[in-house]
């Protein structure tokens, strides 16, 4: 019985994470950290170690940490439950929006709002690109100011950029795989 309560608790905690994390990405880390550490699933150090791992694995952070915590606490079944919990809020909300989206998106106030949100969103994308460059190649703002570049990373970025400019139709998946190969060669040799 107490096991059942524990599993329900695990599900509910990640349901809450799924419900209250807006904007995705790393904006949600503080909330996730509080929930997971507060409930005693992981220590603060374990969470920070996992953030490092999650940064370098595909998939959204919220899903990754749900799977990780669920597995650590209750095995595969726990990871299914936690992942389901984190996915369900978005799933339900987006389906309700999708059902009415044709009508909602045509409404005049929504159109007005979107006409401003779209350029704003493009600004957010641009800043995401710039901060990936700053973090991956300069190791943060301080590195950028001192121009303390990771030259292998910078070279990989340059090669991929040139390739994307000259071979416009290239599949982005090829670019990701190539970056990985270049990373393996570059960082392992030099």
């Amino acid at each position, binding site marked *: 019985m107490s096991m059942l309560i524990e599993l329900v608790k695990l599900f509910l905690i990640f349901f809450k994470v*799924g*419900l209250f*994390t*807006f*904007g*995705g*990405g790393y904006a949600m880390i503080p909330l996730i950290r509080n929930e997971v550490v507060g409930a005693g699933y992981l220590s603060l150090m374990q969470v920070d*170690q996992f953030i490092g*791992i999650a940064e*370098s*694995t*595909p*998939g*959204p952070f919220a*899903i*990754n940490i749900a*799977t*990780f915590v669920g*597995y650590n606490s209750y095995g595969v079944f726990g*990871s299914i439950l936690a*992942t389901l919990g984190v996915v369900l809020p*978005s*799933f339900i*909300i*987006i*389906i309700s*929006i*999708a059902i009415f*989206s044709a009508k909602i998106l045509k409404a*005049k106030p929504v159109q007005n709002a979107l006409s*401003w*949100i*779209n*350029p*704003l*969103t*493009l*600004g*957010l*994308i*641009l*800043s995401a*690109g*710039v901060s*990936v460059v700053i*973090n*991956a*190649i300069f190791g943060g703002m301080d590195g950028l100011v001192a121009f303390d570049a990771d030259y*292998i990373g910078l070279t990989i970025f340059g090669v991929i*950029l040139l390739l*994307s400019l000259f071979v416009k139709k290239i599949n*982005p998946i090829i670019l*990701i795989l190539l*970056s*990985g*190969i270049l*990373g*393996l060669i*570059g*960082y392992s040799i030099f």
Partner: protein
Amino acid sequence: MVKNTYFNIFISFFKIGLFTFGGGYAMMRVMEKEFVDNKKWMDSKSMLELLAISQSTPGPFAINSATYIGYQQKKVWGSVAATLGVVLPSFFLIILISIFLEAFSTNVYIQNVLKGINAGVAVLIFQAWFSLSKNIGVTAINIILMAIGFFISLFIPSFSVIYLILITAMFAIIYGLIRNRGQVDVDVN
């Protein structure tokens, strides 16, 4: 246009889930290639709308977009197929990593591959930005809004995106009302 069976939807999103690096934005480029260029399930403009919807609702972009596109293709079961597809790669990988945690975080070759990917995906984000930018006109107001989004999220990362979007939406709606009233006044005169 590729036939949208549940299996097709699942496979497309599995692929996207597998190549989601760099915090969600890089996957936009992969999605664009898959759904706008290859399968022609949506246009670039709806992609931008999807992003706006996703950012003003809770949950990761990957889940939101999978649920949304899945629903548009094949209703609720399409959503289920898409969401399952986008979640499963991370799910398996993380379970694998949980088992081999030490080996994964200390293996220098794996880390080198990942460092390379982190440097390369930045290009994908710029590509997504560039192609989606074609959907909006080069007007003073658009440039100002883009600059606001850029500088706030770069220099004040603690400022929640949802507030930024809500505030922008509010001003946009008020601006729309004022502009409309102006037009109505003209009509009356």
